[in-house]
């Protein structure tokens, strides 16, 4: 079947206005928030129902075309890159909150539902959805399931896999399975925990269409501290000591000087421009315990040479702090035309060491590397700044990223805490895992997708790479 026929068949399933195939329409879909590799899908389809997804998947099977499930495209690792063309199934029109079941603290939503909408609809019941990636006002729950998303407040509450109870998935053969807890069902589910096994599969096991999430009660009290430090070393040490003291904050985030300056310039919160690092420590829970733990937090900050420890005076100020934190990446444009970010993880006691290493890496490659990250989890986000117009800088930026990730592995950590492997970090998989470890992962994939047609050429070495393709050249069916 040629290109025209494919488009026609897709249009028969979803209607003409829900199929994109002209090059200018497809450009938006040539990459996600990881922009170093790009390729156009053959077509983009925007289904409105699970039945339409099934029909699309079955058509792709007949034609042996790759299927690339896509949410909002906010992935930072090229997870939804159409490496070899194929049909991109964008779930953004399946975006309803279907039901908020306040008594059972559950919500049923369509896969394209934006993360923040769940809490928006649950808030009137005193409930919220815990995973809060910085992209939460855009990213979709289906994408969260695919990448097991985290966020600042997952330190205490856990990540997506701890808050997604079940979901409907269209398998690559077109069958529809409900994995995990049913919307009206009990927590004990027979058989293997396929819900858990497929969360974080990066869209390689099937297309998620509906998701049942767990809602939590909104804590009655919050206390948000801003610890102002002279150096990253002192701030890192404070993080390690807060954890060691047995305090489990709701969130524990760090911004270094370069980030703080950029954020301040962009959002005018009142961050000190000369501080080496700022820690955001948020306690949540009941008022009495927070008061006691707050004193401990202040003490640990001061013991580690904090210049000042501020407390957010009300909800408005607290919201302003989080707005700055979550939009920090957006302020980077003020510092540099390009950046590449990594999200390696180290054991929390190794934070001071990895931060020193990042500083040395910055000097070695002569590139600025500001840091804004989930310190309490040991999940770093160095932002390597470069200018692609300057010869050699892109290459140096990539080399710096590689150095940092290799150090994370050497320190007993991981190359990704929440962004995923995608197309970007494939080369690190054999460094972090043995051949047998990878073989076992592929065994699980084989059960879901024997033909490996769902989001192919991701995660594992040996597939095609976009570098081998001329950019913006459309693959043909």
């Amino acid at each position, binding site marked *: 079947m040629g290109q025209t026929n494919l488009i026609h068949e897709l249009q028969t399933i979803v209607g003409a206005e829900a199929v994109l195939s002209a090059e200018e329409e497809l450009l938006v879909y040539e990459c996600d928030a990881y922009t170093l590799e790009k390729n156009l899908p053959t077509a983009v389809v925007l289904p409105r129902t699970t039945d339409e997804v099934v029909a699309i998947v079955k058509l792709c099977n007949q034609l042996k075309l790759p299927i690339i499930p896509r949410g909002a495209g906010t992935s930072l690792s090229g997870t939804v890159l159409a490496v070899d063309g194929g049909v991109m199934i964008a779930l953004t029109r399946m975006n309803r909150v279907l039901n908020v079941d306040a008594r059972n603290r559950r919500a049923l939503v369509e896969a394209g539902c934006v993360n923040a909408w769940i809490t928006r609809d649950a808030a009137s019941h005193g409930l919220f959805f815990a995973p809060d990636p910085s992209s939460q006002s855009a990213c979709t729950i289906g994408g969260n399931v695919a990448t097991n998303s985290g966020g600042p407040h997952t330190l205490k509450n856990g990540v997506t896999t701890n808050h997604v109870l079940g979901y409907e998935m269209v398998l690559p053969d077109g069958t529809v399975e409900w994995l995990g807890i049913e919307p009206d069902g009990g927590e004990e589910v027979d058989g*293997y*925990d396929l819900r858990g096994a497929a969360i974080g599969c990066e869209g390689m096991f099937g297309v998620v269409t509906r998701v049942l999430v767990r809602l939590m009660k909104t804590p009655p009290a919050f206390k948000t501290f801003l610890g102002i430090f002279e150096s990253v070393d002192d701030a890192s040490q404070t993080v390690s000591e807060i954890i*060691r003291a047995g305090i489990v904050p709701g969130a524990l985030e760090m911004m270094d000087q370069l980030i703080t300056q950029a954020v301040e310039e962009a959002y005018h919160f009142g961050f000190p421009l000369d501080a080496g690092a700022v820690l955001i420590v948020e306690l949540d829970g009941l008022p009495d315990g927070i008061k006691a733990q707050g004193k401990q937090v202040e003490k640990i900050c001061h013991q580690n040479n904090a210049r000042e420890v501020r407390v957010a005076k009300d909800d408005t100020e607290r919201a302003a702090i989080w707005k700055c934190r979550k939009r920090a990446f957006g302020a980077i444009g003020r510092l540099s035309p390009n950046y590449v970010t990594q999200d390696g993880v180290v054991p929390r006691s190794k934070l001071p060491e990895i931060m020193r290493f990042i500083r040395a890496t910055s000097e070695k490659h002569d590139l600025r590397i500001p840091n804004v990250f989930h310190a309490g989890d040991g999940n770093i986000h160095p932002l390597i700044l470069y200018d692609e117009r300057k010869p050699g800088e892109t290459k140096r930026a990539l080399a710096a990223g590689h150095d940092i990730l290799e150090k994370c592995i050497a320190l007993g950590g991981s190359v990704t805490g929440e962004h995923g492997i995608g197309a970007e970090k494939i080369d690190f998989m054999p460094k972090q895992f043995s051949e047998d470890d990878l073989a076992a992962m592929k065994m699980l994939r084989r059960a879901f997708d024997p033909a490996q047609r769902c989001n192919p050429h991701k995660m594992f070495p040996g597939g095609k790479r976009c570098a081998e393709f001329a950019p913006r050249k459309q693959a043909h069916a």
Partner: protein
Amino acid sequence: MTLTPNSIDQLREQLPKAKVVEAMDLSAIGDLIEHVPEDMTATAQAGMTLGDFQTQLAQQNQWLPVDPPCPANRSIGALLAGNASGPRRFGFGTVRDWLIGIAVVLPDGRLVRNGGKVVKNVAGFDLCKLFIGSRGTLGVIVEATFKLLPKPEAEVFLKKECASFDDAEQSLEQLWGSDLQPHVLDLHRLNGQPVNFVAGFAGARADVESQAKAARKLGLQSEANLDYDATFRPTAHVTESVAPADTINHLRSMTDCDFVARAGNGIMYVRHHHPENFKGGIGVDLASGPPALQTRIKNIFDPKGILSTL
């Protein structure tokens, strides 16, 4: 046959040669590999008992927040194979929420690791979840790494003897809708006693005290403990699971039984006095066979059928 390997290496030799393994004794593979209090993580071999593991962690005032019955006789391997849980499940989830890395010997003898030692990690597929609760049908878990919590500064359990299910329901709904943050929400009716409603609070001392005071006002007047769970659950029972809101109605419908129920989770452990009169309970519908996807996974991981079926 029963396998009793002395080491992981020996297990890797024995397993592929075995025809059918009915039982596995990993007690010789039972060391604490490491406990890193400053990272709040620990790694243990599967043969170690949960009780011994908790004792080691407690030296640094930390714990793995799961509490299934019989920790002294329950190995880490068994804990994971069955995803076992106890009364504190409402507050802390199950071991699924705390496991961050595993090593597994596959039926063909390969040693496979997944996850790692850091608390946040999305590198590769999450095989930890596949193996938890797989009842030893896909491979033999030999080592596990957990994230831990500090032991709560204080913990208290309170109960109310309820006049009826309506009475129990009223108390439960009041607590459920309040600002309190219980980590245990149980109902039990044992040995002809009335229905008891049990709530537990753990955490900072000041919080536990203020919550206990509030709970007493809701009618949970007596001090309690969780011994009922440890006593009841090792005896014969069936497990029922419904959406949490349906718990009391489900219990109401079963007149002739003893039970311990996780009211916050909708899970009920039930002993029917006349089981022949009772139809229901969860369980695989054997008539239709296990779902195709489950069978495919089993066949891929254990093609020769060395390990037990799910």
